Structure formats: C-alpha cells, structure tokens
C-alpha cells in the first residue's frame, strides 16, 4: 500500500493498463506534456514515469483541438481492436462531440448487430468549485445516463478511481468517467498492485441505521463529514456511494433504505433529471413500503455556474446542506447552538 492522490491514482491506473496491454493507447489534448497531471508519474515531466518517454508517440498522442474528431477517431480506432483511453480534459467540452457520443459510440454495438465492440474509456474532469465559470463547471453525467449504451462511472476516492478506471479499460462497452476536480488532491492508502473494482457495485463508507445518504462524486466526502458530525447529535447515518451510475447498484440502495427507512441523495449535478432524480425514483418504486419520510434531494439548483467564488461555493451539496436534509427526514430540529459544521 502507498499513499496516492486521486490524480496520482488515475495516472497509476492508466500506466498499469498501458503496461498490461499494447492495445491501450491514450489520445487527447495536451496529454503528451502531461498538462493535467494524469499522464506521468507526477506533476513534473522530469519525474521518472513520464508517459511520453515510457510509451512513445505511437501510444500517447496529442490531437488537434477538435473534440468531435477525438471521440469519433477513438471510435474508429476501437473498431480496429485498439482500446483507447480518451482524455477530454473538461467535462463541459463533451458537448462538442455529442453526435459521436450519442449516435455513434453508444449505438454502434446495436446498429452493427453486435459485431463491433466499442472498448473506449472517455475521461473528463468536472472543474466545479474552482471559480472557472459557466463554460467549465458542468457536472453532466446525468445527460449521459439518459443514453442507452454508455456506462458511467464517478469515482470519489483514489482507491476507487484506480480500481474502477482499470475495470473500465477492460470493458468492451464504452465507459465515461467523470472526475471531480475537488477530489483531485484527496489522498488515501492505495494498493499499488493491479486490482479492479467491478462496475455496478456500491461502496458503503459508513454504516448507519437512521437514514441512508446516497452520495455521488464530490458529494461523498461532504456526506461523510455530515455523517460524522450528526453522530454527535445522536443520528446514525449510512453513507453509500454507488460509484458507478450505469450500471447502478440498485440492490445495495434498496437494501440500505429498507433498513433505515429514510433517504437523502446528495448529487452535485443540477436538480432536474439529475442522478438524484433517478435514484429517488428507484427507491420510490422499489422501497416505498420501507419509507418513513419523504425522500430529500440535495443537488445544485438549476442555475448557471458563475465565476464568483462567493456565489459558486454555496451552490453545491455540502456537509451543511446534507446535514440539514438528514435532520429534516429524521424530523429532528436544527441544533440551537453552533455545531462543528456551521462554524465555517
């Protein structure tokens, strides 16, 4: 085991996959110079482990600035048997390639009668919470959840990032991975050896009996923080991270709510048709009889994301909002005096 950052874990998974299989290649903007820190061992190119040095220009390649081209060419490359990892930098730029994603990559297997696989991983980072404005800050995974044929992963910790990305490269179906920049610096002990985390298996971060908080991506550490603080108020909160949204670990979610009888979903995407909406609907359909209170969603309001750090940081699900939602579903009053969470 060794301590890795989230970014470092992504780099490690990519290196592992490249070493294990010649067919794995990396393409995208600015990947050769390791501008974003995932195509090398560290932030400096002088560090041992620079991908360009290790794998050469045939396997790691800067592309023209054209996302439609990158996604479409990756699909074509996959048809020849390559297994591309595509680096699309910002999630907000996936939209440039919408036809390739939705009409081509997602539908290819069906349209070709199952004859061609699409083993491509599309990585992108959600630059939210960093004051980068409306054109950089989207968390668009729910849009893609609505597209049959795509798998969606949203790892929230370094160890999950490494294991899930590694499994994603093995997938013969296209996988989109959404990485929250707020998590990039987070660190934990990670197994340096190869391991894979199967898609569709949730992770319970904390067990509890009063309420289930299903948290996604950057909301996961916030939910854990809220749960720890609420424990001091006598509330027992279960924190569950689905880790992958397609496929979704429905059993784990339903089973948890069946035990606790209450559900809060914390999802950094917009409210309307977000992942939280899907999870809420699932529980309403499958665990209605267990519910002792209405489901509460903690999401980002349906507004644009401003540059202003003063406005932006309050828009996303944070520990305060999650704690307030938990108290609401548990029908306990807000604490009168300052708590660990409200002092900020």
């Amino acid at each position: 085991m060794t301590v890795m950052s989230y970014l470092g874990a992504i780099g490690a998974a990519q290196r592992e996959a490249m070493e294990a299989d010649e067919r794995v290649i990396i393409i995208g903007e600015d990947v050769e110079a390791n501008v974003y820190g995932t195509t090398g061992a560290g932030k400096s190119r002088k560090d041992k482990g620079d991908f360009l040095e290790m794998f050469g220009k045939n396997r790691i390649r800067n592309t023209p600035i054209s996302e439609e081209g990158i996604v479409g060419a990756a699909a074509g490359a996959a048809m020849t048997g390559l297994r591309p990892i595509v680096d699309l930098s910002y999630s907000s730029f996936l939209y440039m390639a919408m036809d390739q994603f939705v009409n081509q990559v997602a539908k290819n297997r069906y349209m070709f009668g199952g004859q061609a696989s699409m083993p491509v991983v599309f990585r992108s980072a959600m630059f939210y919470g960093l004051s980068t404005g409306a054109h950089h800050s989207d968390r668009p995974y729910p849009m893609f959840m609505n597209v049959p044929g795509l798998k969606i992963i949203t790892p929230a910790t370094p160890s999950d990032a490494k294991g899930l990305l590694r499994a994603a490269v093995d997938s013969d179906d296209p996988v989109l991975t959404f990485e929250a920049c707020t998590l990039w610096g987070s660190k934990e002990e990670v197994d340096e050896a190869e391991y894979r985390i199967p898609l569709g298996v949730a992770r319970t971060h904390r067990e509890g009996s009063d309420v289930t908080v299903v948290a996604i991506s950057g909301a996961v550490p916030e939910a854990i923080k809220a749960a720890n603080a609420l424990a001091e108020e006598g509330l027992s909160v279960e924190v569950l991270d689905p880790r992958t949204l397609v496929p979704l670990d429905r059993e784990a979610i339903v089973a948890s709510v069946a035990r606790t009888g209450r559900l809060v979903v914390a999802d950094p995407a917009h409210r309307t048709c977000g992942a939280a909406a899907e999870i809420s609907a699932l529980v309403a359909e499958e665990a209605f009889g267990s519910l002792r209170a209405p489901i509460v969603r903690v999401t980002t309001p349906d507004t644009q994301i401003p540059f202003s750090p003063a406005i932006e940081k309050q828009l996303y699900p944070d520990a305060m909002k999650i704690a307030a939602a938990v108290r609401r579903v548990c029908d306990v009053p807000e604490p009168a005096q300052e708590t660990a969470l409200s002092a900020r």
Partner: protein
Amino acid sequence: MADPDLVQLLTPEGERAEHPDYAFAGDDDTIRSLYRDLVLTRRIDTEATALQRHGELGIWASLLGQEAAQIGSGRALRRQDHAFPTYREHGVAWTRGVDPLSLLSLFRGVDQGSWDPEATGFGLYTIVIGAQTLHATGYAMGLQRDGVVGTDDPDRDAAVIAYFGDGATSQGDVNEAFIWASVFNAPVVFFCQNNQWAISEPIDRQTRIPLYQRASGFGFPGVRVDGNDVLAVHAATQAALQRAREGSGPTLIEAFTYRMGAHTTTDDPTRYRLSADLEHWKLKDPVERVHAYLTRHVGAGEDFFSEIAEEADALAVRLREGTRAMADPSILSVFDQVYVEESAELAQQRDEHAAYLDSFEDATDGARR
C-alpha cells in the same frame, strides 16, 4: 530576406517596407497613437498578471507578444463594426473603448463580463474554442438582412470580425463558419492569431499547410501578415473589412505571431517548449519596432515617450485600486438570468437557497439581494 508570403510594412528593426498589395493608410501621428495603444495594452496585461499573482484575479490569459495583432486589427474597425473575441482579446477591447476594469472584473469572478456589446461593438469573451466564429457569421448575415452592407455609405456599411487562435482552426465550428460565410457571402473577417501554441500543442498538430492557405479551399481569399507588425495588420484588416462592407464577402487573415507568455496564469510552458524560441521572438517584439521607428524616423523624443509612460503608470494605479475595490456580487443574483421569466421550480429553488443562506448567523447581510 523578406518572406514573399508574409505582409510586412515595418521590419523588426523599425524600418518601413513596401508591399505590392498593401499600404498603411495613416500618417506618423497615427503611428504615434498606435504606439500609445500598444504600450497601454501591454501595461494592462502586465498589471493583470501581477494582480493575479497577488490573488486579486482568479486567472489571467496574457496577450504578451500579440499586441500588434490586436491593436492593428481593432483600430481598423469602424464604430458600426462588430468584433467577436476569444478570451485573450484585451487589446481589441481597448480599441473598442471597453474599460479594462470590466475585463478584470470578469477575471476576478465578479461577473461574466459586464461591458455592453452593442454600445462597444465588442462581444463577450468566449471560452469554448471556436464557438464565436459561428456567432460572427450569423451576425454578419443579420447585417446583410438589415441592409447595411454594400450601400456605399461609409457611415452605414458594417462588417464583423471574428477572432480565434491557431488551435481553434481544428474545430468543426470554425470550418463550418468558413463554409457558411462563403456560401452566403457574409461580411465577416476571420482573424486568426497564429501564436503557434494551443496550450502545450505546437502549430504542427493543427495544420500541415500555412493556415491562410486554407481559405482558398472554402472559396475566399486568405492572407498572412506579420502579426507583430501593427502597420501590416492594420492595412490588411482594413482592406478585408472594406471588402466585407462592400459586399464582397469573407477574408481569412492569419496574423503570424508568438505567444510570449504562458497560456494562462495556471500554465507552465517550460514543460513543453524551448526558451530558445522565446529569445528568437523577443527580437521581433511588436512594441519595440514601433519605438525604433518613431525614434529614428519621426523624431519622437523623450517627452513623447515619458508622457505615455506616465499615462501607463496612472492607468496601472487605476486598475489596481479599481480591482481591489470591486464588491462581490449579490449571492442570489445567480437565479436572475436563467430565463426571462423565472419558472415556478426555479423560484422554489431560489427560496430554498435563500433559506439555506439565512441559516448562517453572520450571513453576508444585505449582499444577498
């Protein structure tokens, strides 16, 4: 040896040069005023970079090295023309009368860009690479419908200029803009600042032929100018704008220049490019060559240069103080401009958000609404 495919009217040494097709349509006083714009623009850039380093701005995209491309083209515009910028066109903004403080408020995160595009003829900054070239084309087609193209009235005929970088030329949007402008003969000038880098990617990852040559494939003229020569840029842009205003359609101008600084303040160019290139381009500095010309051939003296230096100092003070004095925007304002009329759902979300903010005892009183 002069490059025959590159329009140059002022050499890096500050000597005037002739070109068969282009001549600078101004006198030495015009050149003095161009020099003033170059110096002040560079100062805005230097101050903004310093403000970012001091934590007063979130980020800054420096135009260092591209002053002549921006001042030369911006000054060729008429009041009624309209410019569509990327995120780096601070010099063009200056020529359109946009207060540099409103650029700084954007990069400070106070607003999304607060200047009035209609009053200034300068659109809002665009971050998604290439998108504005389509807007420029549509706007130009709107001018055609308004009947302000080819009327022979110099106060009426209007054109559009779209700014973009070398990296952007790989985008579908840009190529589609070329096609649309061409088939509709739209009055738009495509102004590409080829600064030879798209973050870490050198120009050879975007093209195998000189960019200006692409225009012929789309059916309109293309020209490459020395982007560090303010006179050549001015002459070529003026000619292209005039062509557009007369109703003769689009032109692609490739201003051949160099990004002297980092891509933005968060970028570290030592990861991917050699400092030798930078040294080479320093010799072609866009401001120095005008200084040399004015000193050697126009007799501009110490008082002329020190007056501009003082003006730059005063501007710098105004920018520093103005930036530090900017108030944060009101927190609930983010709900205001999603729709013309707020939907019931959004109104409810707004109320929930307000209640959440109220739960902080010491919430920023009054700043909210």
